[in-house]
């Protein structure tokens, strides 16, 4: 009964072609896919659940999120969002998801915040009236009031990320996908951003959320379950308490260290 899950991954594998430079770059698009990024990843996320992806750089977190956003096609296996296959039904998947990365530059900086939102609302099939109504609805909770008529280039990084979240929520997605959402925020702004995610996105809207993060406090604060990736493999997908119990550790950091070491010993 895969359809009951907001997200479902069955044995997902992703391989890339080897990096090529110089004249070899001309054959890069047709090179064999030999570099593994994800290997046999399977898990499900229930409606309204918050799942954190953790792991070292290159563990496969962003690759997994990009597969869910249809920006990448898995090499093998099946990934579904709200019952729709990301490779075969990308248009239906895009109806279900909102996506925001922690990148500072993700808007048209010379347009105002409102102009940006109106543009992306239109590209998400909202009519002019719907877009206005939705922007008004999001303005209060997202604290965008005075910012809407300012050019994006004049906004602080924290406010740009609030705007990014508002954009991701414009078309009322069932699943919110965030790739290191607080990576460029200072600690205070990051804490405020997390509170906002918990209260508004998860609390009020009940949106399913999957996010990648290197900030363990954030992972502990936001997630119901934690999926740990190492070299493209899923080591575990459990609650914080389950993870600590499996590792026999007191903290998340310790648990991650122990589980990673254990996995590397097993693969040797």
């Amino acid at each position, binding site marked *: 009964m895969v359809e009951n899950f907001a997200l479902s991954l069955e044995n997902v594998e992703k391989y*890339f*072609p080897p990096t090529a*430079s*110089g*004249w070899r*770059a*001309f054959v*890069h*698009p047709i*090179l064999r*896919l030999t570099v593994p*990024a994800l290997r046999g990843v399977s898990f499900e996320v229930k409606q309204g659940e918050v799942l954190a992806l953790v792991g070292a750089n290159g563990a496969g977190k962003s*690759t997994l999120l*990009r597969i869910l*956003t*249809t*920006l*990448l*096609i898995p*090499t093998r296996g099946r990934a579904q969002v709200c019952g729709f296959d990301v490779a075969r039904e990308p*248009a239906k998947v*895009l*109806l279900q*998801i909102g*996506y925001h*990365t922690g*990148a*500072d*530059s*993700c*808007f*048209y*900086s010379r347009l105002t915040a409102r102009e940006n939102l109106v543009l*992306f609302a239109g*590209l*998400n*099939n909202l009519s002019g009236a719907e877009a206005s109504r939705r922007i008004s609805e999001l303005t209060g909770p997202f604290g965008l009031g005075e910012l809407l008529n300012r050019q994006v280039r004049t906004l602080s990084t924290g406010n740009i990320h609030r705007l990014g979240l508002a*954009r991701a929520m414009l*078309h009322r997605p069932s699943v919110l996908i965030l790739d290191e959402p607080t990576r460029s925020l200072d600690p205070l702004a990051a804490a405020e951003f997390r509170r906002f995610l918990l209260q508004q996105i998860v609390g009020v809207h009940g949106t399913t959320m999957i996010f990648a993060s290197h900030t363990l406090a954030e992972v502990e604060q936001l997630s119901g379950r934690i999926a740990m990736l190492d070299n493209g493999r899923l080591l575990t997908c459990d609650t914080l308490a389950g993870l600590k119990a499996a590792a026999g550790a007191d903290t998340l950091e310790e648990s991650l260290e122990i589980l990673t070491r254990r996995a590397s010993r097993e693969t040797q």
Partner: protein
Amino acid sequence: MKNSPQFALTLRKLALLFRRDFAVASSYRAAFLIEIFQALFGCASFYFLSRFVQSAALEKSLPAGTNYFSFALVGIAFFDYLSVALVSFDTSLQEARQNGTLENLLVTQTSLPVILAGSSLYPFVLMSLRTAIYIGWGAVLFGFPLREANWLGAFLVLGASVLAFSGLGILSASYLLIFKRGNPVTWAILGLSSVVGGMMYPISVLPVWLQHIARLVPVTYSLEGMRAAILGHASTRELLPSIAGLLLFAVILLPVSFAIFSWAVRRTKITGTLTHF
């Protein structure tokens, strides 16, 4: 003497900055090669232009009642439509990649072809405005003949040209998607078209073998039709061969270029280079 270590240090910094730019530029080897061939196309264009302006038969090769100024103005103004068609898709992709909006655009419920087509509308409108201003200045200040032009015919030729050129533009964008930079499709089409397409001189001044190649380039039909409509006062019926030629290019190029573009998008989703630059 005190200044000489400072001077040497500054020289070293200048050399380092030059070496930085050279290293970055030479990592895009195709772009380097393209520069060499672009110079060849530029040189060839000037050679044929000189043959034309030195020729005693110059007057005879122009449409009746016009001069070289009118001929060249139409050539330059409308050749730019080809440039816009080729460059606008590339530019919108590059800009979206560079300002970080490409991923956000791609996860909307709008397909990439629609995003690219929409993003090229403004450059086309701007180009049309620029062309109108060019011709307006030409008419007001330099006697460009406007009164007897067949504007309906000119618009039909322009519409057919935009369709044909868009096919080339989509091919060019496909190359950029896959290879990221140094687009030889754009320079090859623009370079060849500038030599054989009749922008600055009639194709009759070209060697016969190049005249045959000119028939394989859509801009030839576009400029012929445009000059016939605006300068030669041709009726719409007389413009049909040019329009039919352009539509034939469109019928062949648009499906082929869309198929290649779809393959390119899918391939970049497999190789993971869709949003790289």
